[in-house]
């Protein structure tokens, strides 16, 4: 039996009609995705099925219906698929009596490495996450953030090309977050597929603009943030313009068909629209033609967080009425980062 991995298949994660239920509880319902190399953020409220999707991809669960493939292989009970997968589970669970180095080296050895190689790789992985000085201490003495970094180190120690991270930023301080996100970026740049669930949206936005949004076990949006936003015609957008003579600018903008309303603020004005592109053009035109002095131009609804909350509310509403909540789905991206 060959011990060398088959890396011919591109790191991909493909689900088709994937459903998973636990007794009467439906965790995932008819999920179909095709993810390629790069960084994907898996977003959704608690209980939306994020962890279930990651566990299915990691071969810890079997689908109730449909199928999931990692690098073209069914992951459950398939060592050839699992050797290409690294998982950082959400649970803060490690063996407290082992040191950080023993933990990661042991798990590396279970991945097929010889003891000396496993130790070297474990040291390198722990160093990458800033645990060099603490790696000989028992994990039981670690802070929550350090334990999180041990979990991440074990996930990458065998150099997987599909990295599944379940809430990897939980309990981490800003420095740890920076180290974790840098490592994620580095791995994605080397061609890995990184799928991570998180609640820390600003970090997601800094890391990737490709998201999967799960609500009540269904994917309500997937693709690039701007694509999703553009496809959601009903997603209201506000544009804040701070300039001199805001009342005059507001009067001009009210004549534009793409502008739904204008509201004066303490400083400047707020323009509401459902067609952002023509409205931005109209604002620019009005500013130039009217000779206004522009101080700032921002949109509080253009952030990922605003889109997330809008989609979650929308998904929950649709699920309650039995309608398909996935109508806001952008194209499934499989390209590089």
């Amino acid at each position, binding site marked *: 039996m060959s011990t060398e991995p088959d*890396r011919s298949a591109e790191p991909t994660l493909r689900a088709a009609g994937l459903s998973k239920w636990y007794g009467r509880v439906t965790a995932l319902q008819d999920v179909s995705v095709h993810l390629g190399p790069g960084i994907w953020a898996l977003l959704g409220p608690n209980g939306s099925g994020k962890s279930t999707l990651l566990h299915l991809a990691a071969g810890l669960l079997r689908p109730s219906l449909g199928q999931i493939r990692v690098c073209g292989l069914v992951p459950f009970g398939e060592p050839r698929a*699992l050797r290409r997968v690294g998982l950082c*589970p959400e649970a803060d669970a490690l063996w407290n009596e082992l040191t950080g180095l023993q933990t990661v080296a*042991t798990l590396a050895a279970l991945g*097929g490495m010889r003891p000396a190689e496993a130790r070297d790789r474990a040291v390198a992985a722990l160093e990458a996450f800033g645990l060099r000085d603490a790696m000989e201490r028992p994990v039981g003495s670690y802070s929550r953030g350090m334990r999180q970094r041990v979990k991440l180190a074990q996930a990458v120690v065998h150099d997987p090309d599909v990295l599944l991270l379940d809430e990897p930023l939980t309990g981490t301080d800003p420095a740890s977050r920076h180290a974790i996100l840098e490592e994620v970026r580095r791995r994605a740049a080397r061609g890995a597929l990184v799928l991570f669930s998180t609640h820390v949206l600003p970090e997601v936005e800094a890391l990737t603009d490709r998201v999967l949004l799960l609500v009540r076990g269904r994917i309500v949006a997937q693709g690039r943030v701007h694509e999703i936003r553009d496809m959601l015609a009903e997603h209201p957008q506000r544009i804040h313009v701070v300039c001199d003579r805001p009342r005059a600018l507001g009067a001009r903008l009210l004549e534009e068909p793409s502008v739904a309303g204008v509201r004066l603020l303490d400083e400047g004005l707020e323009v509401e629209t459902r067609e952002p592109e023509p409205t931005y053009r109209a604002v620019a035109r009005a500013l130039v033609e009217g000779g206004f002095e522009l101080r700032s131009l921002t949109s509080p609804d253009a952030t990922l967080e605003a889109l997330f909350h809008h989609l979650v509310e929308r998904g929950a509403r649709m699920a309650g009425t039995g309608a398909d909540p996935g109508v806001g789905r952008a194209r499934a991206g499989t390209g590089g980062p």
Partner: protein
Amino acid sequence: MTARLAPATHAVRAVLQFGARRILLGRRLRVALVAVLLVVAAAAIARYAADDVDPTEAVRRALQWGFAGMLVYLLPVLFASGAIAEEIEQRTWPLLAVRPVPRSAFVLGKYLAGCGATVVLLVAGALAVHLVVHLAEPSRLLAEVPGTVRAAGAVALLGALYAAIALFWSVTVPEAATVLTVLHLALVEWAAGALPGWLRFVSMSHFGRLLGDLPIGGLLPDTVPTVPMWIGALAIITETVLFLALAAVVLSRAEMRRTEA
């Protein structure tokens, strides 16, 4: 990217080392050591409390009551009933299950670690009893060794079986593994081992006592049919392999439960 597929032997060895390390660093080893020391101390007290105690008989009683009657049940519960169940309860199982290792390697590796600890303590404890009891009469120390080794070997064989039973329950019902192991050993092995006639063959403890040349006791011992010793040994080994195979099948088909996520 250099991860490799672990060959089966490598995988079993890695799991065995991991399991052994956990046992060595855990509290259960200390509990087991205290239990063994108590039995050794009890044997020494029984031997030296009176002048007319025959050392051979003292060793025999210690092996019969302390080892075949208590430690052989206690040690597998301590070392094997939590082997997989603890990983699941402590939510560390996903860290292991996601490795490219056949699930059967986890069963075998964890079994070898738990069984090894059980057997080592049983045999070491029996030899310690032998040594302590014969200290006052060194002339019989070596002459009586074969009898003690035979009894210790038989008890160790039973311990290996009970470790497999404990592991089976650990894999099958992790949330109640210890309770079910204790019930199984108490009802099927201990209680049924005292039944009359053919009914006694439900329990492997009867064959263990036969192999170790220990008193078989129980209800109406004269009604129990005589069988060749090799059949008893074969029965114990077969049942051990059967429970291990069942555990491997159950674990290889097991999914992580929702509460473990």
